[in-house]
């Protein structure tokens, strides 16, 4: 079994690996795993075996972290599964452009305008809170080359 420290993983940008391998039995609930090539959060994990003297298999149920779709997979517990790198970062919302793009400021002051207002309830909430003049923090989820706003919080630090 490979030692974690020995595995190469690069966290640079283009051309770099977005996943690293991990033995199936080492996965845990609420961790992350690639299912059907989608980054998923593990919501259910159970083991079974084929035959009384068989080896363990892991049954995984995961929810896509971006679109909340459900995926399942079964694999022998000795096999390696790909685990996605997942990064969550908070950005301050400074503006919403007319064509629906968010203007976000990182902790170091860098601006980015490449993310759109999210769909559905979250987006509606975001717009509403922004219109109401609240200071908003957007949590951006980044994984496997995809990024989107996954949550919003009112910036309490500024209220003090």
């Amino acid at each position, binding site marked *: 079994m490979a030692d974690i420290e020995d595995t190469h*993983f690069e966290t640079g940008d283009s051309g770099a690996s977005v996943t690293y391998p991990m033995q199936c039995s080492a996965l845990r609930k609420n961790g992350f795993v690639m299912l059907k090539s989608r980054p998923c959060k593990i919501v259910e994990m159970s083991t*079974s075996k084929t035959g009384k003297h068989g080896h363990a298999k892991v049954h995984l149920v995961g929810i896509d972290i971006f679109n909340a779709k459900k995926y399942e997979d079964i694999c022998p517990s000795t096999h390696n599964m790909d685990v996605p790198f997942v990064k969550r970062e908070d950005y301050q919302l400074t503006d919403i452009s007319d064509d629906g793009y968010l203007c976000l400021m990182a902790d170091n002051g860098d601006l980015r305008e490449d993310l759109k207002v999210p769909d559905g309830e979250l987006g509606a909430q975001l717009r509403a809170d922004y219109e109401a003049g609240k200071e908003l923090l957007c949590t951006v989820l980044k994984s496997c080359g995809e990024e989107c706003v996954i949550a919003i919080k009112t910036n309490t630090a500024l209220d003090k």
Partner: protein
Amino acid sequence: APPSVVTNEQRHSAEVMFLNFRKTKTPYALCRHILETNGIFINKFSTNVVFEAAGLLKDALIREWSFLQESDLISLRQYLLQYIIQKQLQPFVRERILQVIAIMVKRGSVEDFGTHRGQILTETSLGLSLVPSSQILGCNIISALMQEYATTVKSSDVGLTWETHFKAKKQFEVTDLKRIFQFCVQALGELSKLSPPYSDEVLSLTKHLLSIAEAEVNGFFRTKILSKWKFYIVYESDQSPALRLGTHWKEVILDPNVVNLFFTIHWKVRENPQLAHHSLNCLVQLASLNGAVFASKDVRVQYLGNYMQGFLNLVTSVDILDREALGISNIVRKLILFFPPPLLVGMPADLLQSFLEQLTQLTCRFSEGAAQEEMLCAEDRLYMEAFDHMLEAWISVLHDSQVFPKDFCKQSSMQIFNTYLKCHLSPPDGTRGQGRELDTEEIDETEEDDRTKFKDQLQTIGSFGRQVPAHSLPLLSKLLEDRTNRLQGQLQRMHSQAMNISDTSILDCLFEDIHWLVLIAGHVISMDSEGETALIPSEIMHYSIQQASSGQVNVETTLKLLGSPGHHLVDIPGADESSDHVVRLTAAVFRLCEVEKRAVEVKLGHLLSPEVASSIMWFLRRWSLSYLLPVETYYSEMSMALVAAFGKDTDGATWTVNFLLSKVESNLCSFNSEPGLVKDTVRLFIALVDMREKGSVVLKREGLWNMSSIKIKNWKTDIVEVNTGSSLIREFPGGPLQYRRHFVVIVLKPLQDRFKNVICQENFNRIFHEENVKMEIIDILESFIGVAQGSQVVTVHSLFQFLYPMLSEFATLVGVYHNYQQVVELILELYCECARGMLCYLTQ
């Protein structure tokens, strides 16, 4: 009528009419009229009307009882009685009317103390000499009465308070129940003189009589009045409570002919499933007779002797049917329960011997039946349950075996032990079938494993094995040695050639054999010791000493055998003839471990069975609790061989500990994908370090420290982290100062250094989210949680001093990792464990 004939409104209005009808006040004349007019032409509709009328009567009577004149009641009751005698009624109508009569009788008995009831019973039993049909009617009346007096959901709410109901019931029990039983016995006696083929009427009457008898012996004697507090106790929970009778039942129940009659009846009706069910139940209850009815021990012994004779006559003259097995086993169980060994020895010797022989036969028969059911995955586990009951009975016998003549139980023990073993081994040694698709069944992690599912059975079989150690120990050793050799051979073959499908089925068969051999062996040489001190069973110790004193044991050879798990038995001269049998069995399991280890080394680990590996870990754990470094002061005598092999300060013990530890290592490294196996392996490891004496030996071991650092790096399962952390730390009190320092240096300090290295990195604030950094933090956190969980009163101060400075660092980390649920949860868990396990014990 169907919807095509009757419209919805018509149906609704009919419904309303019925409902209103049911509420009619003082409907007695009306009902009589209805009964009268509808009794003439009986068709579908009139039947229902009569039924409704009867129901109405019932409700009205209950409601208006106190206002009714006695003369009216008597006349109504007599009318109803005549009605059912004269008219041919549907059973459900007759039952309803009978219920009304019974209610009237019961309600009336509160005032008249059962006189009228007595009259009815007399009238009924007078019908004894008449045709079966009127006798059946008599039975119906009696059944209805009994139902009303019983405490079941069937007895209606007659407007009496619980207290009154119980009083009435008690009164019924005292006066009339015996009469009814006598009536049944008499009637059954007459019937038993008939020969087959039996007419339907005869069968029906028999069924009724048996049901009444069964109801009597089953459920009736439950009420007990503690008159001091007028407290009524009802034993509702017990399905079939014991038959406890008072002195006034003496002539009825102690007459040997009564028991004999029931055996005869059963013998005659056993082919008829319905009847046999009742007759067998009666016999079961009669086996549990107890109470004041037995004036002295002699009377009990006499009753037992008569019953036992009847029982033996039955089981030796018939081929037990599948559906009888459970009943028979219940008879045995109750007999032994209510007439325990001190009473059994009062039996004539040959009767007792025959009884024991039959018990053995039955147990073996049921054991085989149970194995069949298991193999076929049968829905009903009749034999399995019956087998369990027999074992229950045997536990009492074995427990009190000292009251029996010496070696009384030996032959039986051997037979039962052998049968069980045979049922679980594959041919040709055994009879285990291939029915179940062992190799394709999907087994969920929540399914019970064998050692849990069959724990009670295995425990008792272990007891049997200990009755005949000269037989069971060598037998188990030889079988295990043989299977291990075969396994090794098979693996070697697969190593050098390509594998094909048939090979795995051979392997599976071997694995299943080994699995059961290990489980049975584990239960023979050791006992469950939850919450108690684990001791070497006295029978085993005694046997080992005896073996040595008869000159059969060469200690040197024994030690050689133990220390050569890589060798076959034949390679060690004299091992077969002169090694201690207990050590030999242990060595057999060690040899099995060695085969597993070697298989892993040549990359054949995927062919091994995690189930077998788990069973082995289970065996070694309970074995080590009793045998490894035994405390000699606990025993009145010690076996030299066992002391030489596993005793304190011996090379044998050191070698064994090292051997077991390396096996633990091997499992944890190569099977860390098998959660169940990892758990069992860690449990063994904890058993090894947990005890003071063992712990110091363990600590001396070089490899241990390497192992602990490997562990902390490699394993991701929480339970392993926690357990290894805590078990290592528990050694603090046991080990001398140098080991403590050693521990700090080897385990705690590196943890601290790793932690510092991670968070003191210059760019930590930027790289904290990177996977490798996060993983390292998680790893360290889990180890710290283990440290907190493993702290004890003696160690808490030093451990807390170690953890404290880092705890405040972790507080900051919560903020840093606020977006990463996993890390935050672990930090919080660490705080919880510190608070729970450490804070309350700090005194400084």
